[in-house]
């Protein structure tokens, strides 16, 4: 028989605390020992701690579910993988294999997409900062360029003149959808007529071909109605393009912004987030009822990122130490912090122990390993008693963390992919000193010891 696990003694104050609807206090201590049938212990043994783990099965499942939600409601649907959400090449290629285009917001993302084998015509180039040479690259590769401001519009006309080629463009439109603050810093405003002015300029220019309309009304949107408003306004704009400018709008791009099932900081208990199906229902019925002729229905493009990948990513970590704070609260120090888990500024991530534990639990503040006061993973989490060396699994960290992470104090760890057959692959190696120093340049006068 295996030796029983040592459990340190503890005292617990009776607290009336917040109860969930079953009358018990919220706890998250169902241990998660396996991810896609691969043991967490083994993963940490093989790839170190901390380590990010991505589930290919979950990614594909999410993608197919989202596609199904739209294609069973609307005849022409295209997803474009939002590179900024997770631009690891292996991850991107899973999406491209599933049929997704690429949505990029910078020159390097653009080149990454090309390197991943995406034809230029299947890359959507977004963002307010597109350099001249990047625009030239996009024009030469026949990409869909989404114009953000008039300066960019004029630059693009110059670029096209220089290239002797017509560019296919869309404008990003911002609008009041009942969600505040309005993201009016991106694109051209609908209500003020700015968008219509931009459209007129594009249609009048010989260098640009207006093919689409784009809106991205926000992020982590909890209201489906806002998408209905956005779809209505874009459809109206598209109809006007047809009737007044004799320009057929080939696609409507409603961007992304669908929420994943994470818990936003400050929300009490579980806040139900609308599912992709609910968004799809509103968007598709709006466009289907907008009065397009059956053979002129625009292609519906979606640039979802977060909702497709957040719950496919896990962060495995290890307890470094337990502490008692001066106010008597318990504190646990982990080997991962906000440096690699940027989203802990927004979410109360669900954290599970990775091994069996007793039924007792305690509230603790979970800190990261940085020597910075803000390195707090969870301000308060109820977990079984953890000892040094115990492992935890942080859930739903697939989106943004592996693009927004920083190399600060600690280096960035391995990313491991579990494929459909349960095999594990490193898809990004842990950083080391030589990687770190690769770009360092030592001036001559400092080079001598």
């Amino acid at each position, binding site marked *: 028989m295996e030796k029983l696990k040592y459990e340190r003694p503890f005292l617990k104050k009776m607290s009336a605390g917040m109860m969930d609807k079953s009358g018990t206090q919220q706890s998250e201590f169902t241990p998660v020992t396996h991810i896609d049938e691969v043991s967490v212990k083994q993963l940490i043994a093989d790839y170190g701690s901390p380590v990010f783990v991505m589930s290919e099965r979950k990614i*594909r*499942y999410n993608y*197919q*579910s989202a596609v*199904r939600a739209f*294609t*069973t*409601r*609307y*005849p*022409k649907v295209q997803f474009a993988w939002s590179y900024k959400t997770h631009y690891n090449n292996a991850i991107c290629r899973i999406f491209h294999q599933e049929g997704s285009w690429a949505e990029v917001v910078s020159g390097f993302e653009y080149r990454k997409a090309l390197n991943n084998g995406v*034809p*230029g*015509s*299947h890359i959507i180039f977004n963002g307010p900062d597109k350099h001249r040479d990047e625009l030239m690259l996009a024009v030469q*590769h*026949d990409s*869909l360029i989404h114009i953000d401001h008039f300066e960019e519009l004029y630059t693009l006309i110059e670029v096209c003149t220089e290239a002797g080629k017509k560019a*296919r463009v869309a404008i990003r439109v911002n609008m009041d959808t009942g969600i505040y603050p309005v993201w009016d810093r991106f694109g051209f405003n609908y209500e003020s007529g700015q968008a219509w002015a931009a459209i007129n300029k594009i249609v009048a220019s010989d260098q640009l071909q207006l*093919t689409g309309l784009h809106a991205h009304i926000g992020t982590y949107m909890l209201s489906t109605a806002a998408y209905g408003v956005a779809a209505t306004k874009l459809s109206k704009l598209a109809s006007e393009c047809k009737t007044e400018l004799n320009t057929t709008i*080939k*696609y409507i791009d409603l961007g992304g912004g669908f929420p994943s099932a994470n818990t936003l900081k400050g929300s009490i208990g579980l806040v139900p987030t609308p*599912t992709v199906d609910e968004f799809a*229902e509103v968007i598709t019925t709006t466009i*289907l009822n907008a009065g397009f002729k*059956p*053979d002129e229905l625009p*292609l519906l493009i979606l640039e979802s990122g977060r909702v497709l990948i957040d719950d496919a990513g896990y962060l495995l970590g290890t307890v470094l130490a337990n502490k008692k704070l001066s106010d008597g609260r318990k504190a646990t120090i982990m080997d991962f912090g906000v440096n690699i888990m940027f989203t802990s500024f927004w979410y109360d991530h669900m954290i599970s122990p990775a091994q069996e534990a007793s039924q007792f639990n305690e509230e603790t503040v979970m800190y990261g390993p940085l020597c910075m006061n803000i390195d707090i993973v969870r301000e308060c989490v109820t977990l079984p008693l953890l000892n040094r060396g115990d492992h935890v699994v942080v859930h739903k960290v697939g989106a943004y963390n592996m693009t927004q992470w920083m190399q600060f104090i600690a280096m960035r760890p391995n990313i491991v992919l579990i494929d459909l057959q349960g095999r594990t692959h490193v898809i990004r190696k842990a950083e080391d000193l030589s990687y770190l120093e690769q770009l360092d340049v030592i001036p001559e006068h400092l080079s001598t010891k």
Partner: protein
Amino acid sequence: MTGIRHFIKNTLYPVLEEILNSYSILFFSNSKLLGAMLLLITFFKPFAGVAGLVSVLIAISFSYFTGISRVGIQKGLFSFNALMIGIGMGTFYNQGIAFWLLLFIVVMLSVVFSGVLHTLFSRQGLPFLAIPFILCFWLVILVSREFAAIDLTTRNIYWLNEMYTVGDKPMVSLILFFEKLPLHPLIITFFKSLSSLFFQDNVLAGIIIFVGLLFHSRITTSLVIIGFISSVLFNHIVHAYDTGINYYLMGGNFIMITVAIGSFFVIPSFHSYVWAVVCVPVTFIISIALSKVTALFQLPVYTWPFCFVTIIMVFFFSIKRQRGRLVLTPMQFYSPEKNLYNYVSTVERRSYENYIQLQLPFLGQWIVSQGYEGDITHKGDWSKALDFVIVDAELKTYTQFALKAENFYCYNKPVLSPGYGTVWNIIDHIEDNEIGKINQYQNWGNTIIIKHAEGLFTKMCHLRKHSFKVKIGDYVRPGDVVAACGNSGRSPEPHLHFQVQSTPYIGSKTIAYPFASYRTRTHEITDMAEFKVPKETELVSNVVVNESLAKAFEFLPGYRMDVSAEGFESTTWEVFTDAYNYNYLYCHQTKAIAYFGRLNNVFYFMSFFGDQDSLLYAFYVSAYKVSLSTELATVIQDKFPLQMSSNNPGKWLQDLVAPFYIFRRLIFECENKTSSTDSFNEDVTIRSCQTMQYFAFKIIKTASVIEVNNKKITSFVFSKGQKNIQAQCVPKG
């Protein structure tokens, strides 16, 4: 100069064609070569030859004058009876004013008879054959006895004398050489029987006819021999004509019946050959019996037995309801080989015209949860029904928990009209069931019935209450949203029930009816199905049509396209519709015609008539069958009619055995590729090739590339051996 060329091309050539066809059609052909050879041998009896030719000219002129069917005149339909009359009268009567006058009257009468009989009979799809000739010739025989100015000639008896006047001694010795060839008497009988169709008993004429037939059709030639042997054998058993069968009976009846039944009016096959042989004794018996009757009036039976048996048999075959072994020629190409090869190559395409196009009544991919003859509810009169649901990768039909209808993927998803039609009935007052419960009192739940044609209705059931987007009487197009999937009626969990029925009632008996096309996925293999019914557990979705391709191949009547290529005269093609509602591309310059058809997601050519060196022919071969979808990277295959292959011994051998076995195939393969520089798949490259397959060997004959840019066909390249055509196309809409 151009005036003369114009005259030759537009007047002389068509008339010449009409004359030659009047001859060749006697053997159910419109081969110019055979026609010319037959024309030649009629002049073995010069006067008969002249009388025949004059009759044909009279008949053609009279036909034009009266304005009957141009096509009929062109095929020689209204003049071949006149030809027979001319040859017959020229053979038996002395010339004179009275002779020519009578000929003139009788020929015109034969055209009238032909026109009337053609109209009467063709309604039933029957031929009128030589009936006008027999009637007119009996008339001539009966009246000429009363006309003192017309007398029988003796030329027949001393016909060699006539030969002297034509070709002097060499001619006579040539004929005598063939007459005295040391051939088996049966073979001599055979050739003489062939020549007897032209009222001759001349071995040389028989041989020329035989060679002409061989060039025209190997199948016909084999049947001519089979007919001859069968009748000789039958005669041998019954001892009807102990001195041998009279040449005319043999040629005009027993041989012709075998050709007609064995190959012309039906598609040649083993069964048609058996029928042809069976018809010989039947014709034999009728000839003998009929001759007893006509003898009372001192009239010969001529080809009555042949006409009678052929018409009766064709009629009989056409009323035969069971699908089958014997197929009446659907489209007459005046060549048994062409008929057969066209038939074989279009077997799979027959559904294109037989069914009204229906598409799957939903968007995206669904699975057949219960197929035809399903175990759960598709039984008895309602067995030909389909149930559809949506599943995820794990084949689950719902999200986490199957507690509410809303958790099922298919719930509230749009239900579409499967085709063009009118909303016939709607039931929209039944509540959705709780999951797991069924409503047996309102079995079908909320239902829509759409009428697509007389006797063709589709019904979709278990819809969500108040989800209907249409009302009774509305006209719907394929793909229009009509309602949403629900869980009403006898439905324990949300699903869509679909059935086709021939009566408009709720609860009508179901009928089996295919979907025109759909994408199917079983075990990771994606394929396209045409005119099939999906099976249980099959994952299906509608084929998404590429709008650019669909528009590019939307050849509506009046559509024009200018096509030019180096080394070719610039041509203009235009789309017309014929009397049978078939569309064709017509080249104004070369007069070539290519018939085509169009389904929702397939464009295809049916047949081509005209110059095989024309641009239209190159396009016909290049776009023989084009998928209008770019969604699937599959190669589509089809078969060309084999007569398109070049003439060589292999082809002749194939022709000979074709009714029984086909070992050569002319395969068409085609693949669509979208351009990588275009986001919306508007630029499509269609690559196709024609390959000849002998058993397992493959030889590439032609290769083509068609470019479609933004809803227009812009160019095509066609290469065949050393020949390489690069054509530019300018559609004019």
